[in-house]
């Protein structure tokens, strides 16, 4: 059951990246609140230092969404797959009211040392994947008349980030895309919001190359002898105004649900920070 007693009875929700991590928490919360939920995940191979979801995670998602839900292996980088999968999800759910774009990956490398594949994996998934899904979803969301889009970006979309220039660029670009789209789809009754989570305790954060970036400090100046999760978590506590190690997954889920639950368009175009207090360092 979701943490804030919201009900989403009968609402038809697609969650990309919904079989693991934050996406799975979002899918489970909507399902628990009465929504009919479609989950996409299990993309093709990428050069990451943590495992992507696969068949086992999709099976678990099937149990979560139940018989009224829908689960499919979809790689959002592949526009052809998305073109086929979106109508299939809409057919399975009997329409579409909500899309949560939570499919995203992260690697860590400075721009001077970054491989071409590292740039492509992150930008293709996080930015192009978001576009592919949203473009195909706009028709069904318009038919709904109360469409809701929530794009999961990242707190690195609010500032520069050492060792994460590809991830930051994609997150900033996701925000630019979402704000542009908010203008375009208001007339069809669709609201667009962005949630920027800080670092969460999910599979994505079980990544030694990412620990090393955290250990180096926000300006990358601290010497790192070896990646160490404990040292990375200490660095997070030091950096976070809340003094928490991680941004709370439940808090991020609630932010998503609040944007979805808002009945009108007053919050369209908004960017909501759920980042263990890092919003205190934002200029606006």
């Amino acid at each position, binding site marked *: 059951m979701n943490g804030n007693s919201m009900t989403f009875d009968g609402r038809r929700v697609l969650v990309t990246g919904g079989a693991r991590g934050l996406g799975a928490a979002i899918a489970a919360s909507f399902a628990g609140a009465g929504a009919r939920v479609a989950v996409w995940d299990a993309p093709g191979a990428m050069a990451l230092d943590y495992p992507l979801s696969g068949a086992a995670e999709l099976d678990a998602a099937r149990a979560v969404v139940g018989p009224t839900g829908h689960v499919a292996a979809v790689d959002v980088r592949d526009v052809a797959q998305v073109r086929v999968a979106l109508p299939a999800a809409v057919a399975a759910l009997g329409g579409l009211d909500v899309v949560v774009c939570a499919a995203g990956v992260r690697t860590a490398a400075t721009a001077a040392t970054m491989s071409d594949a590292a*740039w492509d994996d992150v930008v293709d998934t996080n*930015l192009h994947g978001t576009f592919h899904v949203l473009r195909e979803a706009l028709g069904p969301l318009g038919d709904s008349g109360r469409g809701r889009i929530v794009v999961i970006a990242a707190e690195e979309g609010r500032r*520069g980030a050492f060792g994460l220039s590809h991830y930051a660029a994609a997150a900033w670009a996701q*925000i*630019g895309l979402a704000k542009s789209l908010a203008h375009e789809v208001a007339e069809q009754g669709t609201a667009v919001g962005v949630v920027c989570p800080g670092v969460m305790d999910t599979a994505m954060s079980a990544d030694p190359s990412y620990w090393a970036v955290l250990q180096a400090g926000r300006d990358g100046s601290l010497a790192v002898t070896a990646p160490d999760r404990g040292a990375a978590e200490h660095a997070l506590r030091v950096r976070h105004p809340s003094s928490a190690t991680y941004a709370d997954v439940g808090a991020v889920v609630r932010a998503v649900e609040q944007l979805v639950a808002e009945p009108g368009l007053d919050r369209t175009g908004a960017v909501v920070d759920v980042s263990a207090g890092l919003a205190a360092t934002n200029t606006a």
Partner: protein
Amino acid sequence: MRNFEGRTAVVTGAAKGQGRSHAIALAQRGANLVLVDIAAQIPCASRMATPEELDETARIVESLGAPCLTLKADTRSPEQMRDVVAATVERFGRVDVLLANAGIAAFGPVREMADDVWRDVVDVNLGGVAASIRAVAPVMAAQRSGRIVATASSVGREGGPNNANYAASKWGVIGLVKSVAIELAPYGVTVNAFSPMSVSTDMCHNDLTYGLFRPDLEAPTTDDVRATFATLNPMAVPWIEVGDATEAVLFLASDEARYITGTALDVAGGWNAFHSA
């Protein structure tokens, strides 16, 4: 003022528009020039430069006495950009300035946006800037000096209806620049974005753009769109001139801007005053 005497500057998108203006000004101020342009049309984009225009930029630059290397390259290709940097180092020994200026525009609502209209605009404006920066970053870090200026846009500071591809790409440039600024700061390399309003070039003056500003007219002329463009900023300027862009970019590339890094400099008639940050 020869404040770039002996410096080597790589300018992408140098065949015309802002890039040509930057190149000419750098030549006048003493720089060695590396002129990079795809010099070919990408189908969805407003008119792009020809090989003849790239040659013409080279001719002007050389007539000003500037040593000049002219390279046809597609900024979307990291491999080609690494080749550009290698050729630059071979010819001039170093790279002092990168103006990651190459960009394209094509419009439409997301719902109807063709694959190439999304992909080509994002790949050139963001991917191409990233490929250019990634190619030059190791060289500038090793030199322990350098100036990188990437061209963003006022549309990188807010949402742009019918322009989501362009807005996404330019927001992405600012996030990229701020990140690389942090990474290269210890090496004395500054990395900034330049965020202009419409600049009076082919990207501004074309049927596609005019149609976006005056969808009510069949074939809007420059006079038809001037007032509409001018509503975007409190100074009520319809578009700035390339020289206005060049002055800002060259300032960011100059010694005087040594402690300016990670910024996005708005040259926008105050449009930016409407923005939250």
